């Protein structure tokens, strides 16, 4: 029976083509697994780890829905998980990821201090890239029309109007406005751009105000310049609209920047340039949130497995691997990896864009925004009605969880 399983596993392993070269400098003998988000940067790391042997990576765009349950199992379903600002918070709160201080001390001499994600002194994740939505625009079109790169959203609207009049592209703008998580993220970005807290000191919601209305009205005004089907657009859809020259400007994730110059799928190679995310108002910080991505190791696995996992993790994010793909992400690495596509995110960070808040509260509001803003954008409700519905939904969910009484 056992031999049969091993045979099957071996056949499976052989059958899966691996594009990774044998980059790994260790020979891993402990069976390891990792669950992570699914985009190019993760594939690069997962492939590098695969070359260490006995490693299986699961890349899944819906990883955030599975990660809590997967780590709560004992033993955990995955030895490692990809995490980010927000997904790490509930894992740390529930004690599902292990402190890595000892392992970092023993093996992590090459890591930068900024790569160590710590909570009250415990190193709970190793980050290797940062990400943010920022402005990507068709430099050729702005040049032809003699327009400056917009720095605020009111300027984006002016530029969009000019592009629309010129008829050079189908739609001046495209955005990740898909109902649900994507639109929720747009709202969080825009609302925080007005520099107003989203919650009161006692965890009550605070979005049904002047800034909330202004944020919604700006989203709607932007929507007027987009393909009318924008409520179903995710990052990939927005990326493709840019690549196929059907839109001239977008506020899109830094990890998608390299795709603009990918000659295999893009018609606009060399024409797209990057800048900081526009500010909500003149003089404001760029209306975007900064994210980091990293890897955590499950608490519910043996110490031996955790040690092996940590060594493989380091192999996956080492300079030799990441520097082969300098444009796939904004890598955190020692020595640093220079990239042409990082300027937008760097400018956003330099402009004072906040990090995406990591708290229990934000997830609820993010969800409510993704659920109730579509009706406003459709013209079915007023901005105040949508914001009131979001606050109601927040209160209901927060009470259920015990966050407020």
């Amino acid at each position, binding site marked *: 029976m056992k031999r049969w399983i091993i045979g099957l596993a071996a056949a499976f392993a052989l059958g899966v083509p691996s594009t990774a070269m044998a980059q790994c400098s260790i020979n891993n003998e402990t069976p390891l697994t990792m669950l992570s988000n699914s985009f190019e940067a993760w594939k690069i790391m997962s492939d590098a780890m695969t070359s260490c042997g006995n490693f299986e990576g699961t890349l899944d765009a819906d990883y*955030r*829905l599975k990660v809590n349950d997967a780590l709560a199992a004992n033993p955990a379903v995955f030895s490692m998980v990809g995490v980010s*600002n*927000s*997904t790490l*918070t*509930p894992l740390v*709160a*529930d*004690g599902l990821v292990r402190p890595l201080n000892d392992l970092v001390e023993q093996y992590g001499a090459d890591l930068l201090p*900024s*790569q*160590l*994600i*710590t*909570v*009250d*002194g415990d190193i709970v994740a190793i*980050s290797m890239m*940062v990400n943010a939505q920022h402005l990507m625009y068709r430099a050729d079109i702005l040049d032809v029309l003699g327009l400056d790169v917009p720095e605020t959203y009111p300027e984006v609207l002016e530029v969009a109007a000019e592009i629309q009049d010129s008829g050079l592209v189908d739609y001046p703008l495209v955005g990740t406005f*898909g*109902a*649900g*998580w994507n639109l*929720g993220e747009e709202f969080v970005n825009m609302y925080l751009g007005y520099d107003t807290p989203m919650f009161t000191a006692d*965890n009550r919601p605070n979005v049904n105000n002047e800034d909330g209305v202004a944020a919604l009205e700006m989203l709607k005004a932007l929507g007027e310049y987009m*393909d*009318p*089907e924008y*409520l*179903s657009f995710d990052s990939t859809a927005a990326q493709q609209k840019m690549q196929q020259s*059907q839109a001239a400007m977008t506020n899109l994730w830094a990890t998608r920047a390299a795709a603009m110059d990918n000659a295999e799928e893009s018609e606009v190679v060399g024409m797209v340039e990057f800048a900081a995310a526009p500010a909500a108002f003149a003089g404001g910080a760029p209306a975007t949130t900064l994210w*980091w991505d990293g890897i955590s190791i499950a*608490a519910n696995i043996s110490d031996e497995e955790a040690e092996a996992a940590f060594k493989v993790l380091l192999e996956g994010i080492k300079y030799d691997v990441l520097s082969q793909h300098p444009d796939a992400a904004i890598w*955190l690495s020692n020595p640093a990896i220079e990239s042409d596509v990082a300027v937008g995110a760097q400018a956003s*960070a330099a402009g004072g864009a906040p*990090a995406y808040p990591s*708290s*229990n*509260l*934000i*997830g*609820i509001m*993010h969800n409510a925004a993704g*659920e*109730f803003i*579509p*009706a406003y*954008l*459709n013209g*079915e*409700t007023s901005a105040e009605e949508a914001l009131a*519905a979001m606050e*109601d939904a927040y209160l*209901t*969910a927060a009470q*259920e*969880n*015990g*966050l407020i009484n």
Partner: protein
Amino acid sequence: MNNRTFWWFVGPSLFMMVLFIAGPLVGVAVQSFQQQRASFETVERESCTPFGCTTEEATVPITGDDGRIITRTVWVGWDNYAALLNGPAVRNALANPGDALRQLAQIPFWDALRFTVTFALVTLPLVIVLGLLLALAVNTLTEQLKGPTIFVTLLPFIITPVIGALAIRWLFIGDGILTAGLERLLQQEIAMFAQGWTIELMMLGYRVWHVVPFAFVIFYAGLQTVASERLEAAGIDGATRWQKLRHVIVPHLMPLIVFVSLIHLMDSYRVFDEIVGFSASGYRISLQWLTYDFLIPDESGNRSIGRASASAVLTMIGIVVILIPLLRNTWKEQRQA
């Protein structure tokens, strides 16, 4: 068959049904009256990320000795149902009759209920009529043609629903083949996914296209059992084609029509694939989708299992209610027979 043998036969399946159907049903019903709550405290927390270190007040759940969050299960009575049905908002909406429908459509449960019931009731007659017409048409074909025609007709039913929905979406989305073709033909911008009613029409059309083959196969089988003497007799009595259909064939197929209706209503009341496949949730949601939405964790890992259970229970009750007229008819006929 003696009693003992009977129980040996029925026992295992009875056990399975209790374990896998009745058990979970009771579990869901119980959970719909509960909430899982953690206790939260506000602590000063120092955290470091690539963007620097911050010390701030954070609201965090209290954990036990094992490091896991301590949750307690609270019996909340009808709270989950009340939150779902949102009585105050409904009263507000009804207080303003001219605007009531629009305001009701903003409450997720009522919005979902409206779409779900429309979906079930509009697709039903279309599926029955088209299925019957198709069966009658195929029945008149020559023997050589029947096999291939039946196979081709069944294809829509064989396709995995989500895949089918995605295929239709790609045909009709902004720059999809069909939309682009129509735009060229009509010299007019078409955006099928930019407003609710077009998406709703596409979802209705897709479901009819998908389920008609099922009705067709059942009715076609039924047609093989219509006694040819009866049809001949009707013909000799001077019955027209329509009269034969109306007075001989349809009554003969009635039990099958009721069967297809039952299955279709149950299936379509649980509409879900279309919402996901068409990325329609910005415009239209269904009860099943609402339950799913409560169940999946948000960015911070929160989920509403209580409300999801309440929504699931209400969906089950809805199915029973919508089936009552059909079941009552069947029951009456059984008693007469």
